[in-house]
């Protein structure tokens, strides 16, 4: 698989927790640029572990990695030192957590622009321009442009999650990782977030972990099915849901297990 045509390629990626549990077993996957890729699978199959390993957030839990994670320019994420890793997370691979996490005591403006402090962007005009752009791309600008100095915690759940997306994309990362971003949202907020995800895929590569198979069908061009840490099948979403080649995938899709 040619790395340069892909946004991200993992080669035989294995992740082991300190207690010896293998979160992922030799997962090889090539994520196409400017597309939405969904990772689906039953609870505990290693979806989130896999996603978090893509910008090495699992380091915090003392995980051990094997294999490689290559970005479009050939950078191996697993070979980065601590400083390079911070830059990667700040500028190249954004991450949105399952539940919205606005920062207490911060205004919407301060909250969204927090990542800019890490990379020393202090020019006021530049900060404001990035803020406007990020909030627009996160479909939040029209709702908050007149109250940027209100607390970010005053927003609704759906707005808070879109604020977190704005925060993750403020430095225009190539890749955006979304870990079940709609799990705590109502249907209307979910719909809004999904259309935003499709819009974001125009200039970002989006990898989304989801429990919701309908959601994967709605937003993802490709879907990967993980089971017990192993990649069972990875194909175009249409194929995965209409004519899966693996029995395990078929059983999961028809709801024989979840």
């Amino acid at each position: 698989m040619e790395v340069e045509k892909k946004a991200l390629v993992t080669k035989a990626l294995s992740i082991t927790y300190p207690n010896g549990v293998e979160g992922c077993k030799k997962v090889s996957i090539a994520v196409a640029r400017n597309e939405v890729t969904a990772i689906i699978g039953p609870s505990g199959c290693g979806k989130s572990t896999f996603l978090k390993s893509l910008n090495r957030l699992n380091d915090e839990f003392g995980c051990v990695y094997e294999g490689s994670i290559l970005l479009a320019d050939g950078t191996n994420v697993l070979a980065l030192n601590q400083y390079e890793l911070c830059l990667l997370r700040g500028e190249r691979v954004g991450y949105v957590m399952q539940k919205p996490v606005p920062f207490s005591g911060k205004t919407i403006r301060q909250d969204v622009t927090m990542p800019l402090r890490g990379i020393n962007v202090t020019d006021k005009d530049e900060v404001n321009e990035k803020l406007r752009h990020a909030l627009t791309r996160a479909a939040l600008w029209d709702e908050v442009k007149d109250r940027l100095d209100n607390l970010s915690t005053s927003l609704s759940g759906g707005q808070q999650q879109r604020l977190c997306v704005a925060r993750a994309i403020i430095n225009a990362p190539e890749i955006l990782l979304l870990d079940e971003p709609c799990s705590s949202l109502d249907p209307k907020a979910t719909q809004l977030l999904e259309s935003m995800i499709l819009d974001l895929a125009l200039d970002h590569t989006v990898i989304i972990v989801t429990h919701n198979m309908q959601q994967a069908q709605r937003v993802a061009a490709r879907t990967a099915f993980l089971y017990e840490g192993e990649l069972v099948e990875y194909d175009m979403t249409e194929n995965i849901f209409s004519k899966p080649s693996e029995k395990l995938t078929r059983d999961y899709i028809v709801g024989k297990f979840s």
Partner: protein
Amino acid sequence: MIDKRIIIERLFSLVTSFFAMCVVVLTTFIIGLVLINGLDKLTWDFLTLPPTGTMDGGGILPIIEGTVMLVLLMSLISVPFGTAIALYLNEVSSKGAVYNYTMSSVRTLAAVPSIVYGLFGLAFFVNIMGGGLDFLFGYEERVFRERCLLWAAMTMGVLTLPINIIAVTEALKMVPQEQRHAGLCFGYTSWEVIKWIVFPQAKGGILTGLVLSVSRGAGEVAPILFVGVAYFIPNFSGELLDQFMYLGYHLYVLATQSPNVDETLPIQYSTTLVLLMLTFGFNSVGQYMRWKNRKKLQR
């Protein structure tokens, strides 16, 4: 027929209210007594003159100076150390066996009677450190190996250190873990997470905890009995290696050592009032900080 559950509910309410009222009445009685008897003598001269005679006249200036100086020095020692240790324990160290052992040691130290700290200060600071410094500088006479303000401040610093650590740790724990994760997600280093995410949120709690622990230290007398407080020094020198007078100890002296205890009674009340004002002042600063920070977070 009244339900048994309702009776228990009312009884519970009644008993807890009674005990709460006891505390209110007792506090009001003590403060009222001190105020009524202490206000008369609390004049400008009382606050700005040194004691005279057998301390049954004059004011309490050197005592206030000694107390303020001791509290300041104690804070300079315990606040930075306590904050740094709590930050390390809560934000940097892995929460393993060493962490658990350290935290349980800190909690045990916080419960050690203050007189034990006094004996520790005498043995460690005055004799070992002071003696060591005298030996190091080649002094034949005792210079450092004397009871003084420096060793008293260090002893009080050690006394308040575990309380500081616990206060700061509790404030840091109040910051949800996902806020830290969110910072790591967009590329902050651990230090940046502390500086820009954890500290602004925990600031109110940290400051409140520190002020309250310092005010607790300010009310302690037992530890400094062995390491620096003087019975009577008419003028406070401000030197680190000199002895000093202290409000709490001065009260003890007036009440037990004075040739005419009854004559010094008004001075005792006024001195108590000053000590209360000082500790209440610290507490009020802590409460104000907490209120201000909470207001900012809920704005």
